[in-house]
């Protein structure tokens, strides 16, 4: 089922996606004009898949994902359109009571900073047990404890029995993130949304956490949406990639084509500007200009002021490009002139 062509009313036919987002738009009300944080976002997520969501700060990647669970307070956030189909229901219209059963049970979320996500005056173990018992009253305290210890062990917390009774400050940053993952897994969710889970951590710890996530994914057939700004992490773990710019999905494909033959000039620029470990090249190719202001976003294609391909063509300035199928491999791109981009690698550019 294609991303663009599937009906807006909900998923249909073929292998059913676990999650189906259609035309999602989110605004933030401010003193001035509303900020269009997410614009017309559509995608599908299948069971057992790791979807990488890449973009820079302000691209709408975190806002769109917290909107799936209606976590953004309104006002200022306002969902201006779209639907989020998950297990036969549109999460944007179900009553709050029903949504509460989905949050933390069917869909779990972990965040960048594990320090802020735990209650500092309650032991890690009791917080995870509590998360379990909130959703299932049938679990006895004793069983919740045993299962929590199992979970801590699963995510690689050493001596989990001792660690169960410790407070968050007694955990290191990496251990806290592991505990966070354990808590997210407490109710055997079908989908885990991980928002920059390793950004606050050192590389050696990041490697540990990514490995843990991949192992759990393989063992439990969990689906994961991994939000990150780091193309290296995408290359390591993602099956499919969604690239966002200025609130819009600009490119989506399986991970190999994204790296081998990126079709959007923004994706190309992003990949080219990564500093490399194996050699120091001269100047790094860089994307000129500054990240866009979303209040309002640039007219036409939001990337056009920074685009090397556009060269200020009329069409880029006036007409918003649709996300269209580029070829048979479910590679979708939102660029008027992507067919001109068949030439390899961009040339090293100026610093600005």
């Amino acid at each position, binding site marked *: 089922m294609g991303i663009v062509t599937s009906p807006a009313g909900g998923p249909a036919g073929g292998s059913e996606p676990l999650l189906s987002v259609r035309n999602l738009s989110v605004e933030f009300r401010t003193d001035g004009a509303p900020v269009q944080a997410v614009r017309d976002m559509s995608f599908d997520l299948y069971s057992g898949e790791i979807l990488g969501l890449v973009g820079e700060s302000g691209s709408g990647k975190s806002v769109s994902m917290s909107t799936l669970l209606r976590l953004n307070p309104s006002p200022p956030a306002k969902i201006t359109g779209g639907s989020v189909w998950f297990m036969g229901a549109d999460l944007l219209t179900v009553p709050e009571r029903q949504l509460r059963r989905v949050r933390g049970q069917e869909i779990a979320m972990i965040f960048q900073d594990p320090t802020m996500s735990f209650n500092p005056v309650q032991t890690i173990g009791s917080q995870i047990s509590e998360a379990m018992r909130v959703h299932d009253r049938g679990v006895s305290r004793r069983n919740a404890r045993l299962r929590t210890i199992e979970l801590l062990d699963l995510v690689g917390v050493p001596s989990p029995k001792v660690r169960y009774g410790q407070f968050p400050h007694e955990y290191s940053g990496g251990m806290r993130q592991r505990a966070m993952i354990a808590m997210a897994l407490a109710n055997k969710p079908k989908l885990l949304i991980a928002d920059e889970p390793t950004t606050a951590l050192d590389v050696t710890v990041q490697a540990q956490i990514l490995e843990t996530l991949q192992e759990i994914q393989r063992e439990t057939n969990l689906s994961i949406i991994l939000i990150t*700004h780091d193309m290296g992490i995408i290359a390591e773990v993602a099956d499919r990639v969604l690239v966002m710019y200025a609130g819009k999905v600009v490119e989506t494909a399986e991970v190999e084509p994204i790296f081998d033959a990126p079709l959007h000039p923004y994706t190309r620029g992003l990949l080219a500007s990564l500093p490399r470990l194996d050699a120091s090249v001269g100047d790094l190719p860089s994307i000129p200009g500054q990240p866009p202001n979303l209040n309002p976003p640039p007219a036409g294609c939001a990337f056009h002021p920074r685009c090397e391909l556009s060269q200020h063509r009329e069409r880029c300035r006036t007409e918003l490009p649709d996300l269209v199928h580029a070829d048979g491999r479910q590679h979708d791109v939102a660029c008027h002139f992507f067919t001109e981009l068949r030439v390899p690698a961009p040339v090293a550019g100026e610093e600005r």
Partner: protein
Amino acid sequence: MSTVPDSQRGDLADRQRPMVGEELLVVEGLTVDFPIKSRVLRRRLGDIHAVDHIDLSVAAGETLGIVGETGCGKSTTGRAILQLIRPTAGSVRLQGHELTTLSKKALLPYRRDIQIVLQDPYSSLDPRMTVRAIIAEPLQVQGISAAARRSRVDELLELVGLQPDHAKRFPHEFSGGQRQRIAIARALALEPRLLVLDEPLSALDVSIQAQIVNLLKRLQREMSISYILISHDLAVVRQISDRVAVMYLGQIVETGKCEDVYTNPTHPYTQALLSAIPQPHPARRGERKRIILQGDLPRPEAPPSGCRFRTRCWRAEQRCSDEMPELTVRNGFDHPSACHFAALLSGTEPSRPGRSAAGTTP
């Protein structure tokens, strides 16, 4: 590089600039201890050895990268070089002048020569000052005339790629990358010889990082300034630095030319660090064996005896807990390593991952 006549720049131009390649900064035995005090009586209970007997040097026009993870002492080292934190022991010499013994007042003339750029351009710029005032402030402190300050600010804005009309604006009107340009302009105002860059890219978006990397490289080419680049990001360090020092728990464990250290790392910590970086292409998944270090960083107030890395090291033997390995050239390699068993990673390593402590022989 400067268009302001010397007469208007105070004594800025009087200073002798070192020749490219000449030793600019020499640091020997630099040690910084932070006291741990009891809450009630404020008694000194012990010390955190944040930086422990570090030697390093930077030549004119050169970039030294300092890499390491949180808590390894890399930022403290940078601040101790600037004398923002007074070192507990050791010497910091700038072109032969000892800085550690100088009073605050006596240090002032040397402050021009070493400047710092901080990580977060959102909190390092005063939100109530205009860009012009921000960049002119160090010039004012050094007693440079108002007219000279004006033209110098214009010149600096151009140098870092900002527009002249940006001078009137306030920091909140700029994006992160532009703010970092302002911070760099301010640091360059006094034509320093050495710039300490403490994680200058970490707060910036990926597409902007490359712009700042290129700006820093161009400024170095044009001004033959030296950099100490402090970063946790090994790829960024590789991009900018000539030489690199890898720190672990307050000590340098391996150092050398970037090329040598990145292609032939001999210290197990450097090897683990390099292996942990994600491969930049999905086709190369699993190609490089990731060394997953077991356990956490030991507490710096009670570091392990002997080699500080031994508690997480797969090569550790009895000797590692008895004897602290010195940072020296070993086993025929051309760059120094602080490992008794300095060697390239063999195909079978790490064969004993997660051995919690040394003490047994293999």
